[in-house]
């Protein structure tokens, strides 16, 4: 079982909050899944390079040419809180 401290730490990193029963259930599920994926340890993977992309591409670049920006109102339209043309966030303190 993954420790409570570890689950709390991971939740903090992920900006998620769990309380009470939800926390315990999550701790249990997380532990079970992490335990399951350990079966990869049965494989001999030495000498194999990791694959980041199944299809190999390289040097995909774009010319340094401007494209149209969003109109300001459109950029702000989905914003939950806007002030002076900027997105408002609660104090960071």
């Amino acid at each position, binding site marked *: 079982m*993954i420790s409570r401290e570890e*689950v709390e*730490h*991971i*939740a903090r*990193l*992920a*900006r*998620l*909050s*769990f309380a009470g029963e939800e926390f315990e259930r*999550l701790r249990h*599920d*997380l532990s*079970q*899944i*992490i335990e*399951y*994926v*350990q*079966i*990869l*340890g*049965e*494989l001999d*993977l030495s000498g*194999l*390079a*990791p*694959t*980041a*992309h*199944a*299809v190999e*591409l390289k040097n*995909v670049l*774009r010319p340094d040419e401007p494209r149209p920006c*969003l109109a300001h109102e*459109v*950029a702000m*339209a*989905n*914003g*939950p*809180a806007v002030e002076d043309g900027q*997105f408002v*966030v*609660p*104090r*960071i*303190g």
Partner: protein
Amino acid sequence: MDPFTLTAHDCRELLSSGRVSATELANLYLDQIERVEGDVGAFLLVDREGALAQAAAVDAKAPADRLPWEGVPIGLKDLLCVEGMETTCGSRILKGYRPPYDATVVAKLRAAGLVFLGKLNMDEFAMGSSTENSGYHLTRNPWDLERVPGGSSGGSAACVAAAEAPWSLGSDTGGSIRQPASLCGVVGLKPTYGAVSRYGLVAFASSLDQIGPFARTVRDAAALLDLIAGGDPMDSTSLGLPGPITVPDRTDLGGLRFGIIREYLGEACEPGVRAVFDDAVAAIQSLGGVCEEVSLPSVEKGVAAYYIIAPAEASSNLARFDGVRYGHRAAGGVDLLDMYNRTRSEGFGDEVKRRIMIGTYVLSAGYYEAYYGQAQRTRTLIIEDFRRAFGAVDYLISPTSPTVAFGVGERTQDPLAMYLSDLCTIPVNLAGLPGISIPGGFAGGLPVGIQLVGPHFSEQGLLDASYALEQRLDVRSRPPIAEVTR
């Protein structure tokens, strides 16, 4: 006209011959939606007004002036950004979100003149195999309303199965097109990774996601693939296909070799599913195809590798949902940290939170090599196994899903059991290969899909072979819900 008998090709023919107007056709499907949506729940948003406006624009043109597919209606998985149209990805955290842009595939379909009926239900952020993780409502399997349609593109599959649209778009990361296609008795194709642009597809697992077609027939799926495929300057990982897709018309399978994936016929596979699969093998042979068993030992580790890689990428992709620029923002946060925690905890469902936690864990300090590193190496091994297999055979075949559609609520208490239902489909995503599920028959009255997998960029051949098999199997596609009158 009976929508259960119409393919997209039929719709096109009706429109171009002038026998039906685009408005009439749109209404046909909108009426069908009216009729069955109460039971099926495939849609999150039906855009009646928008669809009729698009149809009217098509009707304003003479048939001779229209593009080939103009006026044919389609449903879009709610994971695809449509400019100005609410796009939620099945999540409460995006309630009310209206994208300021069209996904590339959406722009292509718009330019081709297709009529958008609305957005289709899905497991939240594509995480799930039953669509039960939708933050909004349940989608039910048109073949048995007490059962799930599969997931995560459950709405996209059910919509086609219930004839609410002739075809639809879904996405597939670990089987999310093929598995629901199998469970709902329709055709579903996941293209080669990179064949279709992901720009505008809300990312779940960036190195695995692909957009693909659902349709009633293989020919329709081929046509829709042709409409959406192509490299895109907005997506660095897209290449497109080697050439245009021509509508398949192959009638035999002579000269082709099919590999039966041994690892997928184990005890996880239900007897009914196995029986349908065996019939399909016989059908292939009757068409002149040669079937032999192949072994891909590493695919048994596929689910484990997937449940490291996908959550890891997802945990990062979903970090942008923080209540700052769009979507839900929790009230009452005393500071930024508090706002983040509340917003994300309120907005995300349980499965999404679970996967974010798994992903964060496997990437966290000290664990990266042991988990993510191992999983990426396992991926290399899986790719090697497939490459070796394709040295001996042209296509691989297996049941798409080890079981038929399961009951609503049956697997929701056991996440790991739910994950294992993607056993047959996951490795195909890890290897980036194209895979298709076509209706194979029934077990206990419920659809069973047959999966065909080809080498990278072999979509044309894969569709051709699938077509021949589809014609031979000739599986009926009229679910009980077709008889419902309201």
